[in-house]
Structures are given as structure tokens and as C-alpha cells.
């Protein structure tokens, strides 16, 4: 019983880091549709740094976060400064990130991922697991207990009112997108270095699972822990069934169980949300224009 639980928990950092990064930028009102591309780019910068700069996993994680920030800057310039459609920008970053990362991986690295993993520190779990829990809790404290969190939520809910209080709306959004993309980049680095042990050039779907988890968590940091555990459990059970040869379904359907789970979870989250107060930040997806006349 002990070993499967460790296997499930060891996937948690991917979801916790990625989901909280996406959650932070959505709280401030910016959809980050390009999450998959940011993850891929974070991963590839991390792998590059491992192979060419220093074979140190901690430095690679840091470089992965910086790679995420590069895409965060692109996203912010296009969708916050120039006020382009956030979804169009997201499509662009998504495919650009995946294409660039896949190209670098196969051309300059010969398709080889680093073989080393983080060694376990406590209860057979690696330090990134504990780090991600700590980051999640820090984010929870910032968002729900401090005035900075209140500012971020105000910008996401009603940027005009926030602006009238002297808050620089676009600055707050820049800050949230950059920090969020750093977390997503770290999550991608961890995913490709430690979990997938390789690279897939087309859509792998982990970024979109994080995207779905944000809605499942109804934009609350603490709920992301629950959602992340549920998703890792589904993926863990699916791989175990595949390895053990338990075929209750044909193999094609078994491998898409996580994707079906995303659909079910999203629909369930939205149906139940109808009965409560809407948790979605009101200005999500709309750029803030100061002189707009309503």
C-alpha cells in the first residue's frame, strides 16, 4: 500500500506548481492559454542548462523558471501592454513553445534527457515535492491573508475600481503573469526531467490538466492540493493497470482516461458552480483600457 501512494504523491509537484502559476495569472485577470508552450520552453531551457551549463538539478530548475519568465514577458507585452486578444496570444505562445522546444531537443540534444533525478529526502519523496507544498502554502498566505493578495483579487474582479484606488492595474498583472510563468516553467522542467524522462513534440496535455484544475479548484489555492491529488491518483491507477495488464478497457481507451477525467471534472465543477456564487474573476480575459467609455 505504501509504494503506490508514494508513486501518486511524487507527481503532485507538476500539478501544484503548474496550477498555482496559472491560478495566479488568472486571479489578476489574464488567461494564460499558452501554458503548454510555457511548460515546454521551461523544460527545454532546464535540459539545455543541465547539458551545457552545469549538471546540477537545482540550477536546472532555476533556469527552467527563468525560461518560463521569458515567455511570461512575451505574453505580458502582447496581451497586457498591447492589449491583444489573450486567446490569440495564447495560441501563438502555445505552438511556438512546443515547436521550438521539440526542435531544440531533437536537433541539439540528440533526444537525450538527463538521466539523473532528485534523490529522496524524506518518506521516499524528493525535495521538490516539499518545495512545491511550501510554495503553495506561501501563495495561499499571500493571496488570502495579505494586502498584496487583496490587490491582486481587486485587479481581477474590478480593475476600474482598483485603478481609482491608485493601484497600477497593468503593473499588478505583469507581476502576476511573470511569477505565474516562473512556476509553470518549473513545473515543466520537473515534468520532463523527472517524470516523462523525454520529450513529446506535439500536445501532451499536462498543461491543460493544470488549466482544468484551476477551474476545478474554483480559484482557491488550497483546493488545488485536493484536485492535484485526485488527478495524480487517476494517472497513477491508469499506468498501474496498464503495466499489470488489467484490461477492463481496450488500451486505446485506458490511455485517455486522464483526458476523460478532465472533461468530467470540468463539467462537474461548472455544474456545481451554478448553485453557489461564481468564483471566476470577473475581468478574466479582458484587457484593461483606462480611457474606455462605457
Amino acid at each position, binding site marked *: 500500500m505504501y509504494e503506490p501512494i508514494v508513486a501518486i504523491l511524487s507527481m503532485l509537484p507538476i500539478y501544484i506548481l503548474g496550477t498555482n502559476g496559472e491560478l495566479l495569472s488568472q486571479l489578476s485577470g489574464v488567461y494564460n492559454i499558452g501554458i503548454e508552450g510555457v511548460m515546454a520552453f521551461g523544460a527545454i531551457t532546464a535540459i539545455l542548462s543541465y547539458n551545457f551549463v552545469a549538471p546540477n538539478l537545482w540550477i536546472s530548475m532555476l533556469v527552467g523558471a527563468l525560461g518560463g519568465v521569458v515567455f511570461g514577458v512575451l505574453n505580458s507585452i502582447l496581451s497586457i501592454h498591447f492589449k491583444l486578444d489573450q486567446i490569440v496570444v495564447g495560441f501563438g505562445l502555445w505552438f511556438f513553445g512546443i515547436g521550438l522546444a521539440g526542435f531544440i531537443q531533437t536537433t541539439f540534444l540528440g533526444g537525450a534527457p538527463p538521466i539523473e533525478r532528485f534523490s529522496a529526502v524524506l518518506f521516499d519523496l524528493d525535495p521538490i515535492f516539499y518545495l512545491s507544498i511550501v510554495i503553495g502554502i506561501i501563495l495561499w498566505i499571500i493571496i488570502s491573508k495579505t494586502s498584496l493578495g487583496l490587490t491582486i483579487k481587486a485587479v481581477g474582479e474590478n480593475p476600474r475600481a482598483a485603478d481609482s484606488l491608485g493601484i497600477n492595474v497593468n503593473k499588478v498583472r505583469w507581476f502576476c503573469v511573470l511569477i505565474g510563468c516562473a512556476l509553470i516553467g518549473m513545473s515543466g522542467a520537473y515534468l520532463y526531467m523527472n517524470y516523462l524522462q523525454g520529450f513529446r513534440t506535439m500536445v501532451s496535455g499536462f498543461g491543460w490538466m493544470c488549466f482544468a484544475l484551476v477551474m476545478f479548484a474554483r480559484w482557491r489555492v488550497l483546493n488545488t492540493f485536493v484536485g492535484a491529488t485526485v488527478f495524480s491518483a487517476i494517472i497513477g491507477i491508469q499506468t498501474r493497470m496498464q503495466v499489470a495488464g488489467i484490461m477492463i478497457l481496450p488500451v486505446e*481507451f485506458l490511455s485517455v482516461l486522464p483526458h476523460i477525467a478532465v472533461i468530467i471534472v470540468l463539467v462537474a465543477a461548472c455544474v456545481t458552480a451554478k448553485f453557489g456564487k461564481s468564483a471566476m474573476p470577473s475581468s478574466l480575459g479582458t484587457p484593461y483600457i483606462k*480611457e474606455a467609455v462605457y
Partner: protein
Amino acid sequence: MMFQKKTRGILLSLIFIFITFFGIFLCLLPICQSKNLSIVEIFNYFLYSTITSPSGLAQTLMKTTPLLITSLGLCIAFKARVWNIGAEGQIAFGVIASLGTCLFLPLPGIIKIILAIVFSLLLGAAWGGVAGYLKSRWSVPEIPITLMQNFVALALMDFLIAGPWLSSQPGYAHTDPLPLDARLPYLAYPLNSSFLLGIILVPIVFWIMKRSVFGFQLKATGYNPIAANYGGINVKKIIVMSMFVSGGICALAGTSLVLGEFFFGVKGVTGNYGFYAIVSTLIARLDPKLTPFTSFFVALVLVGTNALTLKGIPGPFVHLSVGILFIGAVLIFLLEKVIESGGEKNV
């Protein structure tokens, strides 16, 4: 406004073509240098394999067909600001419907072809309509839903092709080939008459979007759903309808792939056209008139970069050039925005 809207559209498309070619060949330069290839030769080969030779041109037009049909479908959904990225799955349903009809129904050829088109439309529409219904009923975000639907539809297609529909002949990893009378005829060898299906769809979709009431409702819903609701448009119904029509048209791309290109079912028959069509729709800026040209351009880049692998350029360069296409599309939106604001400072 600097130019008439029409000239501006064409001008922007030309700038886009210039930017992406520039970007692609900028990325090719270091690779050519490291492999001792001449960039001029590479450029000539790129053109030779796509437009300047008749077989290359036919190849490019063949790849244009599914892209064109899918782009037309996406135009309709995108116009209502319903972001349908499930085209890949809808194409898979088109493949399933056409394979099922043409392989197993004991009917004369022409009726089979017509039935394949009708069933693809219906299945694709139903599959797309699910996401539209979920969005309008419970406001479930359509982007993750349609994306996940892709995986499920592709799994279903792979299961059918590798399982119950697998060819009885040993050693085959695909279904039986279609009977000869259920295949669409060739125009000029790789180019099939399924291309004409795409061309016929252009004026139809143009009529739907620009001349019909439904098209106006789509535009109003996409522009401002609240105002559209005040104006008496049933926004929820329009959202479902947009996904319904869009899914149906996208599924026709699957029909064209089966009846006009492959003539059998095999894993990977959908070929990521559902994702590549997003960029050709965005470059056309949701204008169905421009989609034939933009999907031709995207097909040109795909065929050209694929052909370059014969000259020693690594295979994943195709993915990178698709990424460049997408970034170019975003830059075009940026340029259009700057031109529209007429240089006024818009903070």
C-alpha cells in the same frame, strides 16, 4: 485608418508571408552552416518542391484540401468567439463515418460517397455540439473541453482501425482499401477532386457568414453577447449552433482525407490538420474569402519544410516552422491593432 479595409487585409497577408519566410530562413541559416549546405540551394529546393514544379504544386494543393475545409469550419466558431480547438477530433469522426459507410454498406458508389459526406457532417456536428451545449448550458469553458475531446475521438478512431475494422489480410496495420467506385477521382495525380469539395464550400460558408441571418447573429454574439441578447438574439442557441456547424464542416476534412487521399484507414490519418488549421484561420482573420490563400500558404510551408528533410534538415524543423507561423499570426494581429488605432496613443 490608413488604407481601405480590403487593401489592408491583403497587405497584412503579404507582410505575414514575408515575416514568416524571413523567420524560417533565419532559423535555417545556422543549420545550413553547420551542415555545409548552401542556403540558396535550400531555398530553390523549397520552392521547387512546393510551387515551381507541377508535381510539387499538386502535392501542395493536396495538403491544402483538409486545411481549407477545416479553416472554413473554424471561421464559423471563431466568429462567435467560441474557440473550437477540437477540429482534430471532429476530423477523426469524419474519418470514422466515411470509413464505416464506404467499407460496410452494400450500396452503389455514388450513393456511398454522398452518404459518407452526410454521415460525416452529422457525426462531426454531434461531437462538436456537445462542447457547445456544455458551454451554453453551464458555461463550461470550451477550450479545454474541445482539446480533451480530441484525445478521446482519436482513441476511438485508433481502436476501430486497429481492432474491429482491421484488414483481414495478415501484416496490414490498416483497414481494407476502399472499393474503387467509392473513391473520388483524381484531377492530376496527387491532387484529388476532393479539392473541389473545399472550393465549393468557400462560397457556401461565405454566404452563411456574410449574407444569412445566422451569420449576423454569430457576429453579434462574438462582438458583444450582452448586447446581442438585448437585441433579441438567443445567444445560447447561437453558441450551440456555431459549434454544431463548425464541427460538421471540420468533419468533412476527414471525408476528404479518406475518400480523396488515403483510400484506407490508418493510425495518424488526421495528421494534426486540426491544429494547423487554427493558424490558417487566424491569418485569414476569420474571413472565409481569404482562407483558400492562407491554407495554401500553410500547406506550402508544411510541404516545403517536410521536403527539406531530404536535404539533411532535421525533421522537427516542421514543428518549429509551425511555431513561427503562429507567432507571425500574433504579430499580424498586433500590426492590425496599431494601424487601426491610427498611431493614437492608447494606454
